[in-house]
Each structure stands twice: as structure tokens, then as C-alpha cells.
């Protein structure tokens, strides 16, 4: 019973290891990329459309509505990043129904990489929206004394994103592995269903938190009434 798919080695040559995390991530990339390409080959705007196009439209409009509800003004700019985060983490959790598959988000490497993407995306979107000076000024927002606390909060919420997703996925996999050695008949299936539910909730949480962080970095600061009168 291993802690994460990192310890499942498929192929090794000297320093390069092809472990379970990498292989399952490639599998997910293949399914998402090739699947989307196949579905969107002939998009139709008529009343009759293929069921896969309907499914993708439901998913995309649902994500766009959620992003708009969080408070991000033009959702089309951010749906590429946030939608990909949600789809990757959700599909990584859903794949547990396939025997022999372990979610790559059960390894701290994958979740740390995803959290680092969010950590880099928030300043990028913030600077794109408010300019470099405006974004940097947000760090001294209430008073200058808050500067170290704002910096620490940036780092700690990135760490929290990574560890939250890793802990949820790893604990689900570990519970199932332990139960398989104790009562292998029906109960592991119940725990797998619970693992699917928590996986979907964690996917939603990850992308909603990323959207909230981006919204906090890109919201326009309202000028104070006294200053508005002066100009």
C-alpha cells in the first residue's frame, strides 16, 4: 500500500522514472484533448446537435455562470484557466471507476503544480487588469503595516490549496486500500462512491477558490468620495 501514485514505477532508465502520476496525467490529457477535439469537429448552431456537443455546452455554460456568480466581470477571459482546472481535477477523481487507475492528484507533486499555476495566474490576471502599479498597491491596501501579512497570506493560501486537494485525494485512496485488506466485499465500493463525491466537491472548491483569488486581485478599487470631488 503506497502513499501516492509516485511509488508506482512503470519504467525506469537511469535517472528518468515513468511513475504512475506521470502516466495517469498523460492519460487524462489524452482523454480531455482528443475527446474535446472529436466532439468539436462539427459544431452546429441548429436545433439538432450531437449529444456530446450538448454535454460540453452544459459544462461550459455552467462553469461560465459559476465564474460570473463569484464576481469576475468578463468570464470568457478566465474560463480557459478556471475551466481547465475544474475539468482536470474532476476527471482525475471520476477516473477512479476504472480499475487499476489511481488519481494523479493523490500525489503532492500534481497538486503543488496546480497550486503554483494559480499562484502565478493571480498576479498575471491582476496586472493585466489593473496595471503593475495598481496591482502592487493592493498589497499595501488597508495600511502599509499589512504588507507582510498580505504576502504571507498569498503563500499560505497557495500551500493550503495544494495540501487540501492532496489530502482529500490521498485519504480517499488510502481508506479504500485499507478496507480492501479488511473487508473486501461491499464496503470498499461504498467508500469509492464517497471518494467520487469528495473528488467532485474538491474539484469545484479548487476552481472556485482560484476564481475568488483572481476576483480579489482584479476587482477595481472604488475611489473614495473626497478624492473624486478633488479631481
Amino acid at each position, binding site marked *: 500500500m503506497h*502513499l501516492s501514485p509516485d511509488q508506482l514505477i512503470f519504467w525506469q532508465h537511469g535517472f528518468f522514472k515513468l511513475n504512475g502520476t506521470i502516466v495517469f496525467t498523460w492519460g487524462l490529457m489524452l482523454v480531455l484533448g482528443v475527446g474535446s477535439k472529436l466532439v468539436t469537429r462539427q459544431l452546429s448552431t441548429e436545433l439538432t446537435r450531437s449529444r456530446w456537443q450538448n454535454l460540453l455546452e452544459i459544462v461550459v455554460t455552467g462553469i461560465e455562470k459559476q465564474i460570473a456568480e463569484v464576481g469576475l466581470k468578463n468570464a470568457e477571459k478566465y474560463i480557459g484557466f478556471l475551466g481547465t482546472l475544474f475539468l482536470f481535477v474532476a476527471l482525475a477523481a471520476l477516473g477512479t471507476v476504472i480499475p487499476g487507475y489511481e488519481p494523479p492528484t493523490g500525489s503532492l507533486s500534481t497538486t503543488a503544480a496546480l497550486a503554483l499555476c494559480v499562484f502565478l495566474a493571480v498576479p498575471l490576471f491582476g496586472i493585466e487588469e489593473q496595471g503593475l502599479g495598481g496591482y502592487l498597491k493592493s498589497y499595501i491596501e488597508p495600511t502599509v503595516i499589512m504588507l507582510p501579512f498580505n504576502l504571507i497570506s498569498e503563500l499560505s493560501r497557495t500551500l493550503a490549496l495544494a495540501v487540501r486537494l*492532496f489530502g482529500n485525494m490521498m485519504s480517499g485512496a488510502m481508506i479504500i486500500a485499507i478496507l480492501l485488506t479488511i473487508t473486501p466485499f461491499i464496503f470498499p465500493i461504498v467508500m469509492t462512491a464517497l471518494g467520487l463525491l469528495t473528488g467532485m466537491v474538491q474539484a469545484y472548491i479548487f476552481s472556485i477558490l482560484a476564481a475568488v483569488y483572481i476576483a480579489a486581485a482584479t476587482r477595481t478599487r472604488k475611489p473614495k468620495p473626497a478624492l473624486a470631488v478633488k479631481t
Partner: protein
Amino acid sequence: MDNMTIIAVVSIITAGLTIALGSIGPALGEGRAVSTALSSLAQQPDASATITRTLFVGLAMIESIAIYCFVVSMILIFANPFWNHAITVVTKAAGK
């Protein structure tokens, strides 16, 4: 008791205590969060989408604390660096 035994005993006891004590706070917090969400849903049912979404986000943040404690106890049991170090020292001494 030699070093290995001390490390093993302390790791096992700490792992159990970590997850036991670490689940109390989040469980109480989640209970309060859900009860407040239910009462506000009863007062304003048409805001149920916002309330439900905020409830889930809040529950995930509270759950993270329990997850941190779980990760620490898993590390103590399965990926304990002090235990691994003691094992390598003992195997080196036995190999000599």
C-alpha cells in the same frame, strides 16, 4: 529502550493523538456552519443557490484543518524520516 523503539512508540502515539484531537475542532465548526446555513435557507429559500455554494466553500476550508492533521499522521506512519534514518543506521551497523 533503544532509539528505534523510542521513535516507533512516540510516532505511533503521536499519529493517533494528532488525528483524534485534530478532528474535534473541524467537526464542531462544520456542525455550526451547516446549522446556520440551514436556518438561513429556511428564512430565504430563494437565495438557496448562493447559500449552498458558500456553505460548500466554507465547509471545504474548515475540512482543510482536519486534512492537515490527517496528512501529518500519515507522514508519521508511512513516510517518517526519523524512522527511515534509524532503519538505515541499524542496517549499516548490522551490515558491518
